[in-house]
């Protein structure tokens, strides 16, 4: 699969982690943009028009959950696929995890402690292989 045309918006508050992720994914022929807050994420969606969003839930001030609610409230961008790549294990959500999938339409949930950059890349490529028609642009 050629991934050179796919644009990824990465919302990651830890700049060291985020820069590493961008370097890694750029090397995998993705076009990446890194932002550190939910607010900048919403702005970047309009400017950058990503094919997918990689989202950390634990953000400063406004959380990734607030971002997801905001994202899904806009008709023109609500179908953008989201992979949550976070420090929070699935177990902390309890029954709320179902809400992530059903209401907030999270396509995949990966814990950073269990999934390295290679695992994330595999999930991204798998999604695009299966769902080419979900690209925004």
């Amino acid at each position, binding site marked *: 699969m050629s991934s050179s045309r796919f644009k990824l918006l990465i919302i990651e*508050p*830890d*700049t*060291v*982690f985020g820069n*590493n*992720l961008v*370097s*890694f994914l750029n*090397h995998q022929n993705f076009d990446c943009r890194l932002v*550190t*807050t939910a*607010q*900048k994420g919403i702005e970047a969606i309009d400017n950058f028009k990503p094919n997918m969003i990689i989202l*950390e839930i*634990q*953000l*400063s*001030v406004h*959380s990734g959950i607030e971002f997801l609610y905001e994202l899904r409230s806009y008709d023109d961008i609500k179908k953008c696929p989201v992979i949550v790549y976070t*420090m*929070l294990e699935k177990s*902390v959500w309890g029954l709320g995890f179902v809400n992530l999938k059903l209401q907030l339409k999270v396509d995949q949930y990966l814990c*950073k*402690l269990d999934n*390295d*950059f*290679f695992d994330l890349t595999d999930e991204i490529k798998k999604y695009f292989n299966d769902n080419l028609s979900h690209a925004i642009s």
Partner: protein
Amino acid sequence: MKIAGNNDFDLPSDLFLNLLQNIQRSVLNISNQVDVIKLTKNQSQLDVIKNLSQNTNHLIENYSLMINLLQDKQQLSLEPVSLAAVLYDVVNNLKSSAADYGVNLVFNNEGKFFPVLSNYAVLEVSLTSLGISLMEALPALLVNQPHQIELFAAIHRSKYGLVVGLYFDEQPILSRYLINKSQKILRKSKQPLPMLSYGPASGLFLAKNMLNFMNLDLKSSKHNNRYGLGVIVPPIKQLSFVDEQ
């Protein structure tokens, strides 16, 4: 465990759990950095690994010192201390990793200040830990600043004594009340201070608890139109006769 001071409060394993989360993040970053270096063959990024390790070691050192003081294995000796010297060492401890986070660390050493009676190691370790937390948090916080993110290390006089601190924002976002409230949820929350940091902010809580050993505390402070966190160190009248060179 209890810490005697102005306010007796518990120092349970909450702080240790909080520190473990910080260490976990650092180790994860080191692991990812190795993957990126292997892929990109960019050897210059090896310094990032060293800086991450040093920061984690500083936090562990802070916690170890605190436990030793709690268990009376180490005596807290008070001595005449130059706050400018402490701040100079703190800035040296932080400057290599400041670049990794895109933070411009500025040491404002204007002014002559008399020595204070305090403990050099506790002040240095506390302010370094606080600086580490702030450097990690600021790039995700101060996104509306048009220029590079700046963290100022400075001392100034107040009517209560000398204030040594780290300053970063044009609006006050932290208060002693907020920090005290956040400390109570350390065990339950992976993000106890979300208005500042996306993570556990261990350095801030470690600094606060260390300073409590000397009956000092982190407070919201202002220096040259920048808000941040500072420590008021009361003067000792006898030492105020000694001019700082």
